[in-house]
């Protein structure tokens, strides 16, 4: 395949998200400016100007009209997708790390980092239909002593919140009361910080990637460990294919080896694994730096990867991808 290279960001990419219909791709990077691209040919549509710090995460509403972004400048901003205007800004006392719209887009989960004595928090805010009515009130706040929470998402039917972070334990919380319902098992779970989490389309299972060089697939309801995929480098980004039984995992490099990198062109690859058999299907090379973000198009026919090199690579699969046999 001929990937489309999009160099809109000056700094490393942090997150990629497709809208529900798969025609727009949103990219967040450390350069303060989330960008929206057309997902078929990679043309840039626009940028959202307003943040003053690295943008860590974003989410787009079901109808692709609202965008929410979480940034290190201690704010979470709500934008109009089409025009790029900022509709509202939630301000916090610490960098915001992860955002996620609920089903129905009426609520949003925001996580903030531990900072200056404040513990990390998971907050649920209401999103008003009309931006004029938007307030900063939290519907729910969960304060955790656990270290940085890297990703928190809604569980099925908005009943639960699933969080994962630096202490390598996945926690499931009740979304109405904030009570801790389940924790992942310490022995079989990750051993190092969990960097990324991706829900399957129907939310029945999810994939987490960790610096312990593995990615693990979990059942949402029982939090049992289903599968483990072994990588040879710390995992920064994971994604599950909505169409086939594939998962894709992208990673970084050991900090130890930084000075030994010989910068061979495009060495960093996104690895495809068979979701059920756990075998490696193959790798897609091309990035000049560790891969920090991965996302599948909801139609499963293309995927994009964002790297430390600032490039977004959009890949449309060749016909023979769909007939891969293990």
């Amino acid at each position, binding site marked *: *395949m001929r990937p489309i290279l999009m160099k809109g960001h000056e700094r490393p990419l942090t997150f990629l998200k497709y809208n529900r219909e798969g025609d727009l791709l949103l990219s967040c990077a450390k350069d303060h*400016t989330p960008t929206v691209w057309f997902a078929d040919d990679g043309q*840039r*549509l*626009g940028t959202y100007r307003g943040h003053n710090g690295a943008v860590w995460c974003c989410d787009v509403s079901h109808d692709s009209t609202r965008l929410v972004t979480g940034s290190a400048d201690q704010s979470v901003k709500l934008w109009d997708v*089409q025009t790029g205007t900022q509709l509202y800004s939630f301000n916090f006392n610490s960098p915001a790390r992860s955002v996620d719209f609920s089903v129905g887009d009426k609520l949003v989960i925001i996580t903030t980092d531990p900072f200056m004595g404040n513990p990390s928090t998971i907050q649920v805010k209401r999103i008003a239909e009309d931006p004029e009515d938007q307030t900063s009130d939290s519907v729910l706040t969960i304060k955790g002593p656990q270290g940085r929470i890297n990703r928190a998402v809604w569980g099925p039917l908005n009943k639960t919140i699933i969080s994962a972070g630096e202490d390598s334990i996945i926690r499931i919380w009740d979304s109405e009361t904030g009570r801790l319902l389940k924790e992942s098992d310490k022995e079989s779970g990750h051993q190092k910080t969990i960097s990324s989490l991706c829900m399957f389309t129907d939310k029945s299972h999810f994939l987490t990637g960790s610096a312990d060089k593995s990615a693990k697939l979990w059942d949402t309801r029982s939090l049992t460990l289903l599968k483990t995929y072994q990588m040879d480098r710390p995992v920064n980004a994971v994604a599950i294919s909505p169409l086939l039984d594939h998962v894709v995992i992208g990673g970084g490099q050991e900090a130890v080896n930084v000075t030994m990198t010989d910068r061979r062109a495009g060495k960093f690859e996104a690895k495809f694994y068979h979701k059920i058999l756990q075998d490696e299907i193959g790798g897609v*090379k091309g990035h000049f730096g560790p891969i920090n973000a991965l996302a599948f198009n909801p139609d499963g026919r293309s995927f994009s990867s964002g790297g430390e090199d600032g490039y977004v690579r959009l890949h*449309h699969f060749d016909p023979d991808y769909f007939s891969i046999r293990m």
Partner: protein
Amino acid sequence: MAAVESARPQAAKLRWGELEEDDAGDLDFLLPPRVVEGPDENGIKKTTEYRFDEDGNKVKVTTTTRVRKLGKARVSKKAKERRNWAKFGDAVHEDVGSRLTMVSTEEILLERPRAPGTKEEPSVSEGLGPIQPGAVLMVCRTCGKKGDHWTSKCPYKDLAQPPETFVERPSTADAASAAPGGAGRSAYVPPSMRGGGERTGTEMSRRRNDENSVRVTNLSEDTREPDLLELFRTFGPVSRVYVAIDQKTGMSRGFGFVNFVHREDAERAINKLNGYGYDNLILRVEWATPRPN
């Protein structure tokens, strides 16, 4: 691709004395209009536009784009509307020459770790493949099997014939071997035909060899099998080398495989040569199959 030519500002048509300072932006009427030569049968579209660069020179920018149909997409009505949205933010001033989005010049494949089921590369297969008309069948006396090299170029030439080094041939064990061996005492029987025990021997050795297969990438264009052999034999006996060659250009496709007899040698070779500079490129040497442990 964009080609830029500069032309001296036309003196005849406009008197510079009559120009006002801030009319600089309005000089567009001086420029010929943009010409778009539509997609031809290859889908190539040429857009020629003119603009003034910083020094006031008239500049012609030719952009050649190839419009490629990637496939049909079923888009929802909303998605179609979004296609027509106006650009905003930093994308507002995007012009034809913007290089933000580019198609990769390299073809990127989903590289399988091992071809499913069968052996890795077509080169490893036993057969000679379809013989093109006019090709000479190269037979090597040493290994007798390969059809791609002559005896003097045999990668096995340093070894005793491979089957014999690995397998203690039971001299009379195989009934099948007795027949050709005994039938013509004086006739020369090439190693490959010396009985059934041999055959399994070679296959076993070949299979073991594939565990010791080392993949070498980032080879320079004119690297060939003998070069790799030269480079790798210092680590130990090499049973096979292969360099992928593009049939059309005759150049190396940048990668190759080296099969060692002993795995330890392969390991040492990987450790020593990975990152080694060879003929102006830095080699990448690794196990060809997922790390055999």
